C-alpha cells in the first residue's frame, strides 16, 4: 500500500475515480455509452500528443513543434491521398517518415549545436507550420478515403472506438520503453543529469536524437489520427496541442527539468483534462464562466495530487541547468 501511495499515478487515479463518481451522481448521462465513447475518443487523440511531449520532457527538453509536426503530417497525409490519389498505406508510411524526419531534424540540430531544444523547436515550429501553410494556402483537403473515415468513427464493442486501439498500443509501448528498456532508462538518466550520464558513457547524440525521432513519430501518428477523427485535413490540426501536451505529463507528476516522467500518470493526466472539459459541457456551464472553472479545476486537481510531495516539488525549475 505504501509503495502504491508513492506512485505518481495513485493520487491522480483517486482524483479520477472520485471525480467520475461525483459527476455521474449529478449527471447520469456522464456514464452513458455514447458519452464514454466520446470521452475515449478525445482521450485517445490527446494521449498520443501527450506521449510525444512526454518523451522529450523525459530527457529534460521541450518540443514546441509537436503541433506543427502533427499538422504538417496531417495535411501531407490527406494531400497525398487527395492530390496524388495515393492509397492509404503508402500515405501513412510517408506521413510517418515526415514525422521521423522532423523529429530527426529537431534532435540532430539540438544535440550537435548544444543549443537548447526550446529554441530549436521554436524555430522549427515556424518552419513546419510555415510549410503547412505554404503548401495548403490555408485550404483544407476533403477527399478522405472511406476506410479512413470508418476507422475514425466505428466502434469495436459497445462504446469502444476503433480509434483508441493505436493510442493504447502506443501507451503500452511507451511504458515498456520508459521502464524496461535501456534506451528509455538512459533517456531518464540523461534527463536527470546530463553531465553524469555522459561520464557514465551514455551517448547524448543517440539519446537526444532517438527521443526527438520518437516524439516526431508520435506527433505524426497524432496528426493522422486527428484526420481520421475529423475526416478532413485542415491546416489547423495541431494548433491547439501545445499546452495540453505539457499539461498532461505535468499534472501526471513529470518534472519539466527532466528525468522524471510517468507513463500511466500522464495517461491519467490526459483523462483528467478531458473529463474536466467534458464536465464543463455536461453541466451546461455558462460560456462566460467556462474558462474560470477550467482554471480552478486544473489547480484543484494538481493540488490534490501534489499534496504529498509538496515540499520536494518546491523549487523545481522548468528547465534543467545546462
Amino acid at each position, binding site marked *: 500500500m505504501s509503495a502504491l501511495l508513492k506512485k505518481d499515478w495513485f493520487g491522480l487515479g483517486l482524483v479520477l475515480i472520485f471525480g467520475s463518481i461525483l459527476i455521474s451522481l449529478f449527471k447520469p448521462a456522464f456514464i452513458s455509452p455514447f458519452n464514454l465513447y466520446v470521452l475515449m475518443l478525445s482521450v485517445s487523440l490527446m494521449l498520443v500528443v501527450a506521449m510525444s511531449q512526454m518523451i522529450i520532457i523525459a530527457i529534460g527538453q521541450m518540443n514546441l513543434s509537436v503541433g506543427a509536426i502533427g499538422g504538417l503530417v496531417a495535411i501531407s497525409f490527406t494531400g497525398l491521398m487527395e492530390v496524388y490519389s495515393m492509397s492509404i498505406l503508402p500515405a501513412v508510411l510517408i506521413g510517418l517518415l515526415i514525422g521521423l524526419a522532423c523529429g530527426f531534424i529537431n534532435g540532430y540540430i539540438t544535440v550537435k549545436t548544444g543549443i537548447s531544444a526550446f529554441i530549436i523547436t521554436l524555430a522549427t515550429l515556424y518552419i513546419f507550420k510555415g510549410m503547412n501553410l505554404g503548401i495548403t494556402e490555408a485550404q483544407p483537403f476533403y477527399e478522405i478515403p472511406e476506410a479512413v473515415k470508418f476507422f475514425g468513427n466505428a466502434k469495436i464493442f459497445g462504446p469502444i472506438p476503433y480509434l483508441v486501439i493505436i493510442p493504447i498500443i502506443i501507451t503500452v509501448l511507451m511504458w*515498456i520503453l520508459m*521502464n*524496461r*528498456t*535501456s534506451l528509455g*532508462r538512459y533517456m*531518464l*538518466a540523461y534527463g*536527470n*543529469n546530463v*553531465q*553524469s*550520464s*555522459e*561520464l*557514465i*558513457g*551514455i*551517448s547524448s547524440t543517440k539519446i537526444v536524437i532517438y527521443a526527438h525521432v520518437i516524439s516526431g513519430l508520435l506527433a505524426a501518428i497524432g496528426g493522422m489520427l486527428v484526420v481520421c477523427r475529423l475526416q478532413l485535413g485542415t491546416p489547423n490540426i495541431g494548433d491547439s496541442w501545445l499546452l495540453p501536451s505539457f499539461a498532461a505529463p505535468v499534472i501526471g507528476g513529470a518534472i519539466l527539468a527532466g*528525468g*522524471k516522467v510517468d507513463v500511466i500518470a500522464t495517461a491519467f493526466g490526459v483523462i483528467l483534462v478531458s473529463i474536466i472539459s467534458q464536465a464543463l459541457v455536461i453541466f451546461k456551464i455558462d460560456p462566460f464562466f467556462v474558462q474560470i472553472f477550467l482554471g480552478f479545476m486544473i489547480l484543484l486537481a494538481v493540488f490534490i495530487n501534489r499534496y504529498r510531495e509538496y515540499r520536494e516539488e518546491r523549487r523545481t525549475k522548468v528547465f534543467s*541547468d545546462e
Partner: protein
Amino acid sequence: MSDYILELNNITKNFPGVKALDNANFRLKKKSIHALLGENGAGKSTLIKIITGVYNQNEGKVFLNNQEKSFSSPNEAMNAGISVVHQERNLIRRFSVGENLMLTNLPKNNLGLIDYNTVAKESKKWLDIMELDIDPNTIVSDLTVAKMQLCEIAKALSLESKILLLDEPTSSLSPQDTKNLFALLKRLVAEQDVSIVFVSHKLEEVFEICDEVTVLRDGKNACESEQITNLNRQKLVKLMIGRDEQIIKSKKNIDFTDESLLDLQSINTDLGHKNINLNLKKGEILGLYGLVGAGRTELIKCVLGLDKINSGQILLNNKEIKIKSPKDALEKYKIGYISEDRKKEGLILMHDVLSNAGITVWSNLKKILSFLNDSIVYNKVDPYVKQLEVKTPSYQQIVSNLSGGNQQKISVAKWLASGTDILFIDEPTVGIDIKTKSYLHELIIELSLKGTSIILITSDMPEMISLADRIITMKDFKVVGETINNHNYEEMSSSIMGNIHE
C-alpha cells in the same frame, strides 16, 4: 616493453583562461596503488578525465598496455577496461541504487527487456563486497552523502576493470568506511591484478595504501612515480606546496563558566532530534563530532529555520529568539552557515567568483535606492579571497570552472566577509588540499580569537582535535557526550569514540 599498464607522456591541457596541465607525465605500474597528489587546481582531476576520454588533451600521448590510445568518450575508456570514480557524484538521483550500479550494462530477459530482479541480485553482490548494508531498491536521493560515495565505488568495482581510477573517493567517508575500503582495494590488487590510481588530500591515507606517488604542481610534475618508501610526510608536503607544512593548534583560554552566547535548550525537531542541549560561549570553537548521519547538519538546519523545531528554546544572549529563515539568522542575529554541500547549497556554480563571494554582504553594502556595484563588493571581499589564496584567473571566472578546492574556498570566503558573530561551519575542508587546509584552520582560529563563536562540524578527527575547544558528540540525533579538548590526539579520540560506541 615496459611494465606500465598506463602511461601518459607530456600531456598539456588548456581551458579557456587556464592551463590545467603542462607537459605532465604519469606512469602506472601493474598491480600498484599509485597516489596522484597536488594542491587544489593542480590538475589531478583533469588528468583523470583525459585518461577516461572526458577531455581530449591538447598535446601529449596516452599509452594503454604500451599501445597509443586516445579515447573520445568515457564509453570507450570503459570498454578498454578503465573504470573511474569521479570527484563529482555521478549517480542518477532518481534511480535505485541497484539500477545505478548496473546502468552501463543492464541485465535483460529473453524479450530483451530489463530484468529488475537480476539487477537487484547482481548489484547486491557488489554492495555486499563493499560491506554496504543498503537495499538495492533504495532510491539514491534518499542516501546520505557517504553512502552515495560508497555506491559510486561499488559501481566502479562492478565493471571488474583492471585499471581503477579513484578521484578523492574518501572525501566524505568515515574513518571506519575508509578502513574497509582500503582493505578491499588491497585485496583487489593482490588477488585480481588490479592497478589503482588514488587521488586524495589526506596524506595519512596515501601512506597507508599507496606504493608510488606522482605529485602535480600547477599542472607540472613536481615528482614522478616516486616510491613511497623514499618519502615522508614533510617531503611530500614540500613537493606539493613548495614549503613545509605548519601544524596549528588552537591555544586559547575559554572560560567555560561564562554566560553562553547561544543556547539550545531541549530541542526536539521534526527530523527526529531528541532533547538536544547545547551551549556556545563567546569566542569558542565548539566541535560537533559524530559519524555520518548523526544528524548534525540537520540540527543546524533546524536552528536556521529550514526545518521545524517542535519544542525547546533557542536563546541568544539569554533572550529567546525565533529564527524563521537563514535570512533572519544572518540579518537579525548575525548567524551564518557554511554548507557541507558546496555544489548544491554553498555556491551558485553558474555565477562568477565575485557574486558568489559577495552574496552575503550585499544587504550590508547597499547604498541608497539599493544601489550596489562590483567595486563596492570587490573592496569588501577581496581581502578574504586573497587571504584564502583562491586560485582563479579573475573575479569574473565562473565558479564551476574552478577546481573543487577553490570552490570550497569561495564558499568559506563569503561567510568570512559577512562578519557574523556566530558561524556554523560544516565539513569545511572536504576536498581541500593541505596547504589551504592549514590556512583555513588558521583562519578559523583567528576568527574565534577575534570573538566569533563557531560551531564546527567535521568528520575529520585530527581536524576536530586541533581546532575545537570543546567537543560534543552526537549519535542518532541525540547528544551522547561532551568533552573539553586537551588537544591530545590519542586521549581525545579514544574518549570520543568511547562516547559513540557506548
